[in-house]
């Protein structure tokens, strides 16, 4: 029933507006409407309605104190429904986790306001041991500085999927942490396209001068960069960007999206090794064969599959494609060579 959904949504929005309005006292109608994503007419209608709400006998002194003029709306401290409300466990967790996550990014709370807000929250909600640990790769600062100041970087980068190292000059665009690692989306001059780099695989980084204005103006990676994201507008990260847009982009991009060039591989494993496959977002369990679990994974480079098979153990077997069946044995032999050559 749509009317029920509508009433709940409108009630939630009314709470949000009153709660915010009481902090500022009075605000222009246009500003409030924009902030809460309403037309000015809809805002005025809801607030005029709310101004008629109260308790019996519904005389003016028993109604919500909301004043709507031609240009502004205002309310008064102490008005019922405008006081902060208790948070559900999920909401308390969301705030505590978000604040702690940003605090663990060096340089993200330079004026200390976030720490102060968090300690006020803890004082009221009760301090709960929530910790957020993020990587701090060696060149995170260099990448962040370059991306915030529009500079290029020359990096030495190890591509794990193909086990190759290369030197590239990149224009960092946006930096994010996902699945436990920091990534940077950047324009890569070597590839002539947008690429995603894992920051802890950068083994050297030196400034390479200002970025081209054209590249910067192109903004963040669009749909083509990520193998099929919906890319809701390419300038989400600009100064006036909308946080919702940024978050949508992150969901769409994920840390690894199997590209068109990736190969589907079926692997039979022991039950005791399936936990490792569970941690790979694109891996999926299939029907068991011969009493053993079978999984499919998408492989972007041989080295990635070598790592996976070696970690799964000798009992893991590639079912198909056939040319991957000896991959683990070949990789193990290559590693073994390093041990044997050191001994002779």
């Amino acid at each position, binding site marked *: 029933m749509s009317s029920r959904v509508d009433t*709940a949504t409108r*009630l939630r929005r*009314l709470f*949000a507006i009153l709660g915010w309005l009481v902090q500022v006292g009075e605000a222009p109608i246009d500003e409030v409407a924009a*902030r*809460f*994503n309403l037309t000015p007419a809809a805002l005025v209608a809801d607030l005029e309605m*709310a101004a008629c*709400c109260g308790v*019996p006998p519904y005389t003016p002194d028993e109604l919500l104190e909301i004043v709507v003029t031609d240009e502004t709306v205002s309310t008064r401290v102490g008005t019922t429904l405008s*006081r*902060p*409300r*208790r*948070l*559900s466990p*999920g*909401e*308390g*967790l969301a*705030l505590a*986790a*978000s*604040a702690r*996550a*940003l605090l663990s990014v060096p340089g993200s709370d330079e004026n200390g306001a*976030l720490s*102060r*807000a968090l300690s*006020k929250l803890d004082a*009221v*909600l009760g301090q*709960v*041991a*929530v*910790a*957020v640990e993020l990587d701090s*790769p*060696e*060149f995170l600062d260099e990448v*962040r500085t370059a991306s915030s100041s529009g500079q290029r970087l020359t990096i030495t980068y*190890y591509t794990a999927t193909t*086990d190759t190292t290369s030197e590239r000059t990149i224009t960092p665009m*946006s930096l994010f*942490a996902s699945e436990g690692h920091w990534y940077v989306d950047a324009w890569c001059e070597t590839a002539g396209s947008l690429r995603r780099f894992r920051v802890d695989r950068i083994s050297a980084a030196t400034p390479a001068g200002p970025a081209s204005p054209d590249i910067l103006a192109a903004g963040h990676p669009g749909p083509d960069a990520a193998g099929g994201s919906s890319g809701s507008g390419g300038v989400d990260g600009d100064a006036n*960007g*909308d*946080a919702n847009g940024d978050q949508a982009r992150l969901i769409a991009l994920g840390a690894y999206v199997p590209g068109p060039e990736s190969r589907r591989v079926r692997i039979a494993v022991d039950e005791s090794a399936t936990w490792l496959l569970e941690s790979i977002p694109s891996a999926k369990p299939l029907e068991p064969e011969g009493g053993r679990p079978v999984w499919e994974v998408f492989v972007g480079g041989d080295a990635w599959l*070598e*790592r996976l098979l070696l*970690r799964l*153990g*000798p*009992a893991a*077997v590639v079912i198909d494609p056939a040319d991957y069946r000896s991959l*683990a044995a070949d*990789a*193990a032999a290559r*590693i073994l060579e*390093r041990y044997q050559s050191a001994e002779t």
Partner: protein
Amino acid sequence: MAKLDPLERITDLLLVLLDAKRPLSRREIMLRVPGYPESDDASRQGFVRDCNILKSEGVPLVSSRIAGDDQVGYSIDAEKYYLPDLALDADEQAALNLAVAGVHLGDPTGKEALSKLGIGGQWPVRSAVQPLVDLSFSGGLVALPVLFEAVRSKAVVTFTYRGVIRTVDVAGIRFRGGHWYAVGWDRDRTDARIFRVDRIDDIPQPGDVGSAAFPDDFDPDEAFARSPWNFGTGQALEVDIAVDAVEASRVVTELGAESVIERTDDGAVVIRMSVTDVPALISWVMDFLDHAEILRPPEVRAAMVERLGDYSTPGAQR
């Protein structure tokens, strides 16, 4: 009389219940809140629907037995509804908004929390390059808020973990390496344990408030600090591993600079780590392919060489 806006009726209902000094029966509420239909059936349906909306919006509306013909009374405990004022200044409000905008949890819970605190709506993004942090995980967050609340209320919890029922005094929750974990005292195993929250099979059932109990020497930080190769009960071994330049940055990021005992001009490092579970260490070293080499002690190096030999017969069962 024109039909009342349903938002007006439900707002009045909320205000009347917040204002009441005692539980009110439905009949008393109908007398105080305008807009319910005349017929008894229709007005009851409308009332039940409004109550459900309020509950779904987190309003602590409860029904209780009252004296008299009506028997059931409805009330909202204002203590449970309002939060003491946080007195956040403008900078602190902006910082919290930035944190919620910059951290992705997979659902809008953070934004709803801000609205409840009176700092909702769209905020101008202050910094052009706010890094985004993704804290969500596939499978949803259903167990996590329950564990969070259990830590806060010091309640023991029971849940099924990979098919086995566990009874745990949860001490804290932590995000690490892309996953959420709970650390606590496992009553059945009488030891500290870490649980990956997305591997909990059901919604944890909390016990009574204050029912959690920890041994005096229990240290959640120590339990969290253990790496996979430190979970065995074997004697701790010091293991030195050479890592090529291409993987040095990743290893140092993971283990910390203090683990480096040697650094060569080409960027390669030798790291030293303390290990109680050698098979777990070997699995970790495999991830570096031929860019890493266990140098010493000889027995760990020999175990690695033996393991590598096992792959020469594909599919060998061990």
